[in-house]
């Protein structure tokens, strides 16, 4: 009994803590579920549907009214014509109806079958039940009326036509197909895109890591002005991608770019090189002809330039946590600078290098903005992410874009599993 009592009070506190934790976390949960988790599943859903960008606008029915005949004469026979048209290109609308108020002073002679006349609060209302309307369908309904007093067009137009219909929402309907996947996998460029992605990801990540390591090695040494230079080295990462991407585009412009002008001035190139628009260039190096993918290399260079600061920051932080007496001891033992790096610094930073490589690999794989802004995915720089945009919004096939996004997600899943498996526990 005595041992049970404290246990019970602990239970109450524990339960209260549990409830509180749930309360504190629930706003985050809800938002993340709505904006991240739900779209993730919705993406799978869309990838199995043949949806194009134009289908997103909700379908509607348009009805137009037209009056024929002499309105000013009394006792004249008039024809009221309603023309209707559906904006839906793929799906039928059901239970379509519209209603319109007839002005006073007209008498009905004849009416087309789907329509009936009602009197609602002393006004004559025509109500037409069209039923199901096929996609792309259009048609008209004619009313013959007799005018009992002079009328104007405005009297007819003053009443708005009310339309009612039920449409199948294309996003929630239940027809699925594999056509998107068939389409993206059978396209000859898909494997080209995959290859480009892997090149870009691998070299971009490795380059940024190596440059970051080099920068960290330099900035580890104390010298006057180090804090300022460290700040400057972070600029490429901190500045908006849009600004730095366009300044690269301007810098390497074939017509007004400084780099091309400089290359011609110094005699390195005979004519301007279109750095972001040229797929390949033949370069002879030691007698070998090498086919260099120009635009892809430039995009990789940009990636390295923009993200080396991040690796640099992490590696520097790790290096500065190595106790300095280790270096003093090494110095006393006569270890050369290279030996100090190889046997002392490197073992300390190898784990952060591994983590950085994996995480940066994933992020480079996911990168969209940089390539899109530099080349728009042209000239052999189309990666999977750019392909999502290209399929969904340039070709306006949302379904195919979603299918590419699913492929990306599958790769990510694979990388994450690798990441979890190989991350040293203390670094995660």
């Amino acid at each position, binding site marked *: 009994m005595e041992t049970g009592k404290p246990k019970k009070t602990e239970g109450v506190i524990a339960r209260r803590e549990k409830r509180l934790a749930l309360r504190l976390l629930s706003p985050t949960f809800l938002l993340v579920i709505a904006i991240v988790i739900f779209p993730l599943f919705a993406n799978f859903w869309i990838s199995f549907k043949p949806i194009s960008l134009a289908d997103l606008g909700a379908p509607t029915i348009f009805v137009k009214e037209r009056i024929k005949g002499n309105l000013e004469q009394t006792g004249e026979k008039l024809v009221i014509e309603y023309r209707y048209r559906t904006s839906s290109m793929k799906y039928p609308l059901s239970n379509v109806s519209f209603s319109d108020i007839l002005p006073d002073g007209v008498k009905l002679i004849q009416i087309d079958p789907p329509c009936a006349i009602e009197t609602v609060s002393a006004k004559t209302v025509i109500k037409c039940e069209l039923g199901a309307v096929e996609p792309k369908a259009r048609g008209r309904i004619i009313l013959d009326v007799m005018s009992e007093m002079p009328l104007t067009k405005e009297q007819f137009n003053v009443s708005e036509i009310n339309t009612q219909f039920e449409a199948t929402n294309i996003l929630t309907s239940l027809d699925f197909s594999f056509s998107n996947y068939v389409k993206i996998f059978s396209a000859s460029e898909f494997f080209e895109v995959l290859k480009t992605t892997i090149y870009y990801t691998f070299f971009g990540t490795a380059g940024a890591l190596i440059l970051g390591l080099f920068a960290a090695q330099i900035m580890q040494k104390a010298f006057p002005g180090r804090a300022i230079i460290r700040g400057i080295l972070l600029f490429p990462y901190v500045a908006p991608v849009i600004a730095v991407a366009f300044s690269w585009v301007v810098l390497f412009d074939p017509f007004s770019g*400084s780099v091309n002008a400089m290359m011609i001035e110094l005699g390195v190139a005979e004519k301007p090189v279109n750095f972001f628009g040229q797929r390949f260039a033949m370069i002879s190096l030691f007698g070998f002809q090498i086919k260099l993918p120009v635009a892809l290399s430039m995009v990789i260079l940009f990636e390295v330039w923009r993200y080396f600061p991040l690796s640099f920051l992490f590696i520097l932080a790790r290096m500065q946590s190595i106790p300095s007496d280790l270096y003093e001891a090494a110095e006393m033992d006569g270890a050369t600078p290279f030996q100090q790096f190889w046997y002392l610094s490197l073992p300390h930073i190898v784990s952060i290098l591994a983590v950085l490589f994996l995480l940066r690999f994933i992020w480079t794989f996911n990168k969209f903005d940089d390539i899109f802004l530099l080349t728009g995915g042209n000239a052999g720089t189309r990666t999977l992410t750019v392909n999502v945009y290209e399929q969904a919004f340039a070709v306006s096939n949302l379904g195919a874009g979603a299918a590419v996004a699913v492929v990306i997600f599958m790769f990510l899943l694979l990388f994450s599993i690798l990441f979890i498996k190989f991350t040293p526990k203390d670094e995660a």
Partner: protein
Amino acid sequence: MAFWRLGITGGFLAGAIWASLWQLLVCVALIIGSDVQIELQMGPAFITGIIMGVFATLYKPNNAKIYFLVGILLYALLLFLCSFGAPFGSLLTDNYWCMIVSLIIISSLSFISISLTVGSLNAGMVTKYFIEAFYSRLMWGLGLVFFILIVSIPFYVMVLTSLKNQQSLLRNPLDLSIDFSVAPEKLFNSYIELFVKYDFLTLLLNSAFVSVVTVFITLLFSIPGAYAVAKLRFPARQWLSSSILLIYLIPAIILVIPLYSVFSQLGLRNSLFGLCIVYPATTIPVALYMLKGYFSGLPSELDDAGLMDGLTRWQIILKISIPLSVPAIASVALYVFMIAWNEFLFAFMFLDDVKIFTLSRGIVSLDSTEVPRQHLMAAAVVATVPVLFIFLWFEKFLVSGLTSGSVKG
């Protein structure tokens, strides 16, 4: 006898490399930064550099100031003599001052670099340690110059292009000098046009609005969340703190199609409100992860003491945890602000209406053949300056923020 074990070889090498490098860089700077006619001459610099490198290995300073002064003057004199009085191709007589200043700059940079690189290296046979130390000094110096150059050139070009006009840009793309003699309204013509014609003030305000709201919502959601994960015991806590990281590996490009479709149908797409929902959702996991790390570092005894004194958990968060973690919260806020300010994809996809464009969205719409390049660059400067300003102002906070959370980019 292994010549590479001789200290004097190091002197040769350091002299040749640094002299050539500075000669090249200063001449290129002169070509693009002034209208002085010069010719790139590497030969004299090369010879001067080697001689001065040997000098630096042979004479070690007793008094550093006098040593540098003598060395720089000696360097300038040697370069002058080696090039037969014309270190920049033409005689010093025309553009007298410009040439002399350039000569002094080249001499100072070269000699200081050479003597610092040579350092304690002696001329005779030296041990492997000193050779390697010499090479690591050489690499260090070259690396520093390399990094400063590659980082600053694109930004320099960005600012300079924005101050040019169309004719001068097309006439000579190499002329990257600023002509201060023209009237300020002409110099800043692109900026004036951006704000008058393209209404960039609205864009700036829109960006600021979205970023500040994002920071606010992110903190509002992530501080309690992080506290819960760090301090409270509940099932799946471990699982939760590791899965936050996974959420944050999901790229925007996967989410953009469903969000575009759903937001279109809900009428949220073409609105700043839509962005204010999406941005926090992408930043909260990062913020939560960063703050969680900080909160777990605060001693739990403080919370217990608070509980004993009758505070509720909310009061503990408000009165104990938040005041103690102001630096961490500041760094998270700055980092989130930076992400929101720089965000491109969602702004590009969602916003159609010019009135609600953010800066990123507005600048993309300037990227057309009808808009001159200097306007585009001026817009890039306008978008960059606030972020860089904040960054430099709060660098200490931001750097710790960057390292604690952001392998993201």
